[in-house]
């Protein structure tokens, strides 16, 4: 909390993650019929140190596949076809797909941690919370057991969680509490990079605000980078620094969260933001016609064109490139950001 502002300025522009042209497909082959689902198709992004990057988009647009691929938590049929993911920890580059298993294990938890989707159900139901902490973090912290347990208790206390939860089984805790324990578990090794996939989706508004506040505080304290995945634009507006909007496996718009929400350029983002009901605003909102495309057979050209109100001829034929429209603001759309 007491980090000097000078230090903050120093690390502000340091790059933490570079993803270039990443393609990850689900490939199956049964009885001679092969099927390919292009869940992540050519995504490039960079994330700086001490920054929260938001990923928005509806379900089945590839958000979860993208973050799974970024942390290399993938197994067949999901395969990486092309592109690279490179983290920068403590001044050295790690290309996560060229690392050996042992090196990867060394990075996990210590430098890179991943809060899974449905994280209130990831704790082992037959182990007490303390044992879960020992299972996951003990070997990464490399301290004698009593000291390790003291360390965990201090960590929980810092996050304003009662250390008594260590004696509980997961079923004795409420959903919000379990979510908080999972966040504490993911941050106990003070990782440089945290990936949080839908950390608050199943929670109600009051608890959600609390858990997000905790997540933000953890990030602020460790000065780590974070990817926050959620479809809730309200959450992004309140928590993230930069926001990337995905549609059908591709990034369609990216920029400072304020810019993306206030002056969206892509018609999909504009729709997502404008269709949200707000308290105090009773005007008629419209849902988007049609449904997200089947990624096994995506439409040609821009994948949004069948639902897009601005679709032109070129949209049906060619995929729009990402165009920089303002500082840090990139959009892939033929209509609103022609190259």
């Amino acid at each position: 909390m007491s980090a000097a502002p000078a230090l903050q300025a120093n690390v502000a522009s340091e790059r933490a993650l570079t993803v270039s042209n990443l393609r990850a497909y689900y490939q199956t082959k049964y009885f001679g019929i092969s099927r390919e689902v292009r869940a992540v198709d050519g995504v490039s992004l960079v994330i700086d140190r001490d920054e929260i990057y938001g990923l928005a988009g509806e379900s089945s647009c590839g958000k979860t596949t993208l973050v799974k691929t970024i942390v290399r938590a993938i197994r067949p049929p999901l395969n990486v076809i092309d592109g690279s993911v490179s983290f920068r920890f403590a001044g050295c580059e790690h290309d996560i797909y060229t690392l050996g298993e042992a090196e990867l294990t060394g990075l996990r938890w210590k430098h890179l941690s991943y809060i899974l989707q449905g994280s209130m159900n990831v704790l082992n139901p037959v182990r007490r919370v303390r044992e879960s902490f020992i299972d996951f973090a003990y070997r990464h912290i490399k301290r004698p057991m009593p000291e390790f347990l003291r360390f965990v208790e201090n960590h929980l206390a810092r996050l304003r969680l009662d250390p008594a939860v260590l004696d509980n089984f997961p079923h004795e805790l409420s959903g919000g509490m379990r979510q908080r324990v999972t966040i504490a578990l993911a941050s106990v090794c003070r990782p440089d990079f945290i990936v949080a996939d839908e950390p608050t989706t199943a929670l109600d508004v009051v608890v959600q605000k609390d858990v997000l506040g905790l997540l933000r505080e953890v990030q602020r304290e460790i000065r780590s980078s974070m990817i926050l995945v959620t479809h809730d634009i309200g959450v992004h507006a309140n928590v993230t620094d930069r926001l990337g909007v995905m549609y059908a496996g591709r990034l369609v718009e990216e920029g400072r969260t304020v810019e993306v929400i206030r002056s969206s350029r892509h018609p999909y983002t504009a729709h997502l933001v404008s269709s949200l009901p707000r308290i105090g605003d009773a005007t008629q909102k419209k849902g988007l016609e049609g449904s997200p495309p089947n990624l096994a057979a995506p439409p040609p050209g821009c994948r949004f064109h069948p639902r897009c109100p601005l679709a032109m001829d070129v949209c049906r034929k060619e995929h729009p490139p990402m165009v920089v429209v303002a500082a840090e603001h990139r959009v892939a759309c033929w209509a609103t950001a022609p190259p």
Partner: protein
Amino acid sequence: MSALLDVDHVGMTYVAGGLLARRVVRAVDNVSLRLEAGKPEILAVIGESGSGKTTLARMILNLAKPTDGAIRFLGNDVTRIHGGRARMDFMRQVQPIFQNPFEAFNPLKRLDRYLFMSARRFANARGGEIEARADKALHQVGLSLAEVKGRFPHEMSGGQLQRIAIARALISSPSLIVADEPVSMVDASLRMSIVNLFKSLRDELKVSIVYITHDLATAYYISDRVLIMQRGRAVESGVARDVLANPQHCYSRLLRESVLSPDDAGKSFMLANATPAHRSQEDAKSGSET
């Protein structure tokens, strides 16, 4: 004016454990609400998880028996419904829509089967009329039988499945629909179309809807009246726009303040540039809760 649904000081107590280690949970405590017949409206029941919203819905649907108080539908006590025919009559009038459309349908059964069964049993349709009924209901939700026939739940998106669930509920031409968190599992881009569908059910088909949710923004958008619940009690109720714009009870205010709005972009307390004053305030608040 007579009441369509009259929930009269209803309460529900769950008892867990045996004689020695009894644990009593008061899930719903003294809740009353009333929907008038001939005046279709959407009543939103708002509350956090564990506030008794779903228990209330189950009691209205006659899936659970209240331990005290009474629920009257068109003047008849729903717990006094005995016999197959009376039960069918009640189910024809009151239809549920559940939270998760993927769990509402059996993955091994074709979707049209649910529609045809409902048409046969609730609408007394026979022969070709069965398909006609199903098709009509699907048209009311913006789908058609051609799109649904012969398909399994996994072939449809969540939004489509939820529409089919609504169509199924409409086959018997009910006068009341109880929708338990109907949009929380539906994609952002499709959510508004479902919500708008509820509006059109009220306006065109004259169906009253009990809309159970924890999303204050959609409740503000579609409902005529709201009932805010906390730990089983109704803490505030009234005209939706007034209550949500200017909540009086401290819990309603907390709910209202916890809504994260996209309009907060760039000025939220949670952002890195928040002032220390904001932060310590937040500290004090969450500290007292844990």
